[in-house]
């Protein structure tokens, strides 16, 4: 039975959907495999959006190319929209691939390195920003056509003692208003950035500030990101950018390979069709 399969992982192919799905940038290409597709012809349901051409054939399996040949198909994105690539035998459609052609979406990020007036400050430094952006874009661009750029990178000073833990508490009844420090930090945001990331020493958002339960959090255009975050910084920053673009956390051990898996030390980098469509509709 013929079907479309992934050639290169984490390039915007989702095999868990029916039909499988591929993200293609406007004016860009992606290659997919057409397994068992010998003799099938290809057609696009909307060639103004996407077109498909065969790049090369290679024999696979004992039956050879004639029986079980895997063909490499190049999909080209012509304009933003949705189309289906159909592999056909005569008038019968053997298999389909959904193609989402997406425009580049840019997220301009301000990287703010926080210190307070009592000597608390993040250990992170602006010199790392370039490498983080590269890591984030290696995850987000090929899969969702989202590109992060550095709007600014600077030290910001909150002129009060934030204590050893910076907290978000306004949703918790019975906690003194002075404990809610998020607003004091994000007031220093760069208003010309899409997303402001504030690096702080320690961050909590529950009733147990003495226990390190969370590494980073996003609300609206702001994100607080502590020094003790689990996992690779670039990957967690890409995860938080996913939140900024309205992607929720996912749970369940079967989702551990996903960028939006909730636990920083275990999340992967794969972006599903559903999440790519939320990030960059």
């Amino acid at each position, binding site marked *: 039975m013929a079907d479309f399969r992934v050639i290169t992982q984490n390039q915007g192919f989702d095999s868990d959907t029916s039909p499988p799905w591929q993200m293609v940038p406007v004016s860009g290409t992606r290659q997919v495999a057409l397994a068992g597709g010998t003799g099938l012809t290809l057609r696009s349901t909307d060639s103004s959006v996407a077109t498909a051409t065969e790049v090369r054939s290679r024999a696979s399996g004992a039956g050879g190319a004639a029986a079980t040949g895997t063909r490499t198909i190049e999909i080209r994105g012509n*304009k*933003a929209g*949705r189309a289906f690539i159909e592999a056909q035998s005569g008038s019968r459609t053997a298999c389909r691939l959904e193609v989402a052609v997406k*425009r*580049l*979406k*840019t*997220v*301009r990020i301000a990287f703010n390195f926080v210190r307070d*007036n009592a000597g608390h400050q993040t250990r992170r430094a*602006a010199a790392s920003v370039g490498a983080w952006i590269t890591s984030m874009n290696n995850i987000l661009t090929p899969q969702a056509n989202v590109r992060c*750029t*550095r*709007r*600014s*990178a*600077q030290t*910001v*000073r*909150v*002129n*009060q003692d934030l204590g050893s833990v910076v907290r*978000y508490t*306004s*949703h918790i*009844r019975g906690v003194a208003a002075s404990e809610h420090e*998020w607003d*004091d930090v994000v*007031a*220093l945001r*760069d*208003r*010309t*950035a*899409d*997303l402001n990331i504030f690096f702080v020493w320690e961050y909590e*958002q*529950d009733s147990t500030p003495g226990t390190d339960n*969370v590494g980073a*959090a*996003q*609300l*609206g*255009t702001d994100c*607080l990101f502590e020094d003790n975050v689990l996992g690779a910084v670039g990957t967690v920053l890409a995860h938080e950018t996913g*939140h*900024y*673009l*309205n992607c*929720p*956390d996912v749970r369940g051990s079967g989702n551990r390979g996903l960028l939006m898996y*909730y636990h920083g030390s275990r999340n992967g980098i794969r972006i599903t069709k559903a999440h790519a*469509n*939320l990030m960059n*509709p």
Partner: protein
Amino acid sequence: MRRAWPVLVILVIAATAIILHSRSQRKGIGMTEQPPQKMTPEELEAEVEKACEAIRAGNCGPSPELWRYGRAVVPPLVPYLRDPNDDVRRHVVALLKAVEDPAAVPPLLQAMADPQIEIQQRAATALYEAYDPQLISKQPSAGQTLRKSVAAGNTSAAALLLLGYAGGKETTDLLSQVREKSAGKKTKLYDWSPAVTVTLPANVALSLLGDEEARAALIETTANDNLDELRFLLSVLREVDSPRVLHAVGQALDDTRLTGSGAPRGADSPRRLCDDTVNAFVDRLRLEIDFPLTDAQTYSDAQIDQVRQLIRAAIPQ
């Protein structure tokens, strides 16, 4: 005595420094909250040029907060809306949003003809978020600019909603076309807000233009119980003027599903749709309530009921 003079001078300087430092501390914020240094138009022009040059060179470290100059920074920004560098134009649109001065409206409308749809979308969102739509619609050829942008593929929720203020048959026809041709296609108002079908903001705009079919569709939407769509409608309540539609959206006061609003993702926010509805309607109808509004906590049943009664009294059935 003469030997004491240098010591005295040092003490005076130190005391002055301490006073100035403590004043800046009391202001609560570091350098970014200082009022901008006065500049002549020529100096401001030079600063804008320097900032744009830095963006072209990919050097985006700390940069002067040009938006703090308000109206004065608008004229020197305008030529850069034609800059060949996309990032420069993106930055100019961000600055024009941040200045929050009506002088920025015409150049933002100009940016809605940018060669990049993404920059057109940014300009639409900037106009929608930071400026009065009535003022925007009064600009010469605003309606035409908006229609051209939407017809070219800018289906951002902000662009569609702004069309609701443009008026005219051409606008109604275009919105109807968008609604018909965009089945299943999604859009957002802001990057962080829920993705909804393009049909929804198109219907809100058409409803604002008096289209009964669109109003019926919006009432139908409220009955579908789609949380993202209801949250979207609450976020664009400013554009809803039909009493029937307002009453239909107001039924969300009975909806206790959690929305997670008012707290960062991952925090156990107690916030429900009914709480978000209270805020949206108090703001939209300027309701005089006897309890404080909150963005993060829940309201009591009595408080929600008070808003329900006030809505009934404020808009005809």
